C-alpha cells in the first residue's frame, strides 16, 4: 500500500516538476518571440524608410533626367543654328568670305570669342548679369544662347 502511495506521489511530483519546466520553457520561448517581433518591426520600419527614400530618389532622378533631356535638346538646337548660319539658303561661306573678306573676318573672330565664353560657361563659370538679363538677339551669345542666356526666348 505504501509502495503504491509513494509511486503516486512520485508521479504527481514528476507531473508538477514537468509542468514547471514546461511553463519555464514557454516563458523563454515567449521572450524570444517577443524579441524577434521587436526586431521584425524595426526591420519593417527600416525597409519602409528605405522604400520612401527610394521613391523620393526616383522622383528626383526622373526630374533630373527630364531637365537633362531639355538641355540636350537645346544644345542640339544651338548646333543646328550654327549649321544654318553657315549654310542658310544655300549660302556658300567660302564665296562669301571671298566677297566680304573683312566683314567675315570680323564675324568669325567675334564668334570665336563668344565660343570661348561658351566653353567657360559649359565648364561651370558663373553667368554675368549682362548674360542673365539678355533677352534681345543683339544682346545674346549667339554661339550658345541655351546655356549663356537663360532669359532669352527665341523669336
Amino acid at each position, binding site marked *: 500500500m505504501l509502495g503504491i502511495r509513494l509511486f503516486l506521489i512520485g508521479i504527481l511530483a514528476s507531473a508538477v516538476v514537468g509542468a514547471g519546466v514546461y511553463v519555464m520553457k514557454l516563458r523563454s520561448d515567449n521572450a524570444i518571440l517577443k524579441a524577434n517581433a521587436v526586431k521584425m518591426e524595426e526591420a519593417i520600419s527600416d525597409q519602409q524608410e528605405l522604400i520612401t527614400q527610394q521613391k523620393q*530618389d526616383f522622383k528626383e532622378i526622373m526630374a533630373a533626367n527630364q531637365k537633362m533631356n531639355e*538641355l540636350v535638346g537645346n*544644345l542640339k538646337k544651338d548646333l543646328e543654328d550654327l549649321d544654318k548660319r553657315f549654310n542658310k539658303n544655300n549660302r556658300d561661306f567660302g564665296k562669301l568670305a*571671298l566677297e566680304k573678306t573683312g566683314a567675315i573676318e570680323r564675324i*568669325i573672330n567675334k564668334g570665336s570669342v563668344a*565660343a570661348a565664353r561658351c566653353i567657360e560657361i*559649359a565648364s561651370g563659370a558663373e553667368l554675368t548679369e549682362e548674360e542673365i538679363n539678355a533677352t534681345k538677339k543683339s544682346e545674346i551669345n549667339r554661339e550658345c544662347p541655351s546655356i549663356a542666356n537663360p532669359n532669352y526666348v527665341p523669336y
Partner: protein
Amino acid sequence: MRWIIITSENAEEVFKRLEEEGIDPVLFGLTDKDFQLIAKNFAQIRNQLKITNDLLDKYKEYYEPEVKDEKDGEE
C-alpha cells in the same frame, strides 16, 4: 586667338601686315569647309562638356549634400 582670312587677292597684304606687326609670316590654314567642320566639332565638344558637367553636379548634389548645406549655412 585670331582668325585671318586669306584669299588669293589679299594674301600679299596679309603677309605684309604680319611682318609689320613683327609676326612671322607663316599661317596655318583651313579651307572654308574645314573651318565649318572645326566650328561644329568645337560646338559638339562644348555641348558634351556641358552635359558631363551638369551630370557631375547632380551626382555631387546627391552624394555630398552636406557640402552644399554647409556652403548655404556660411552664406
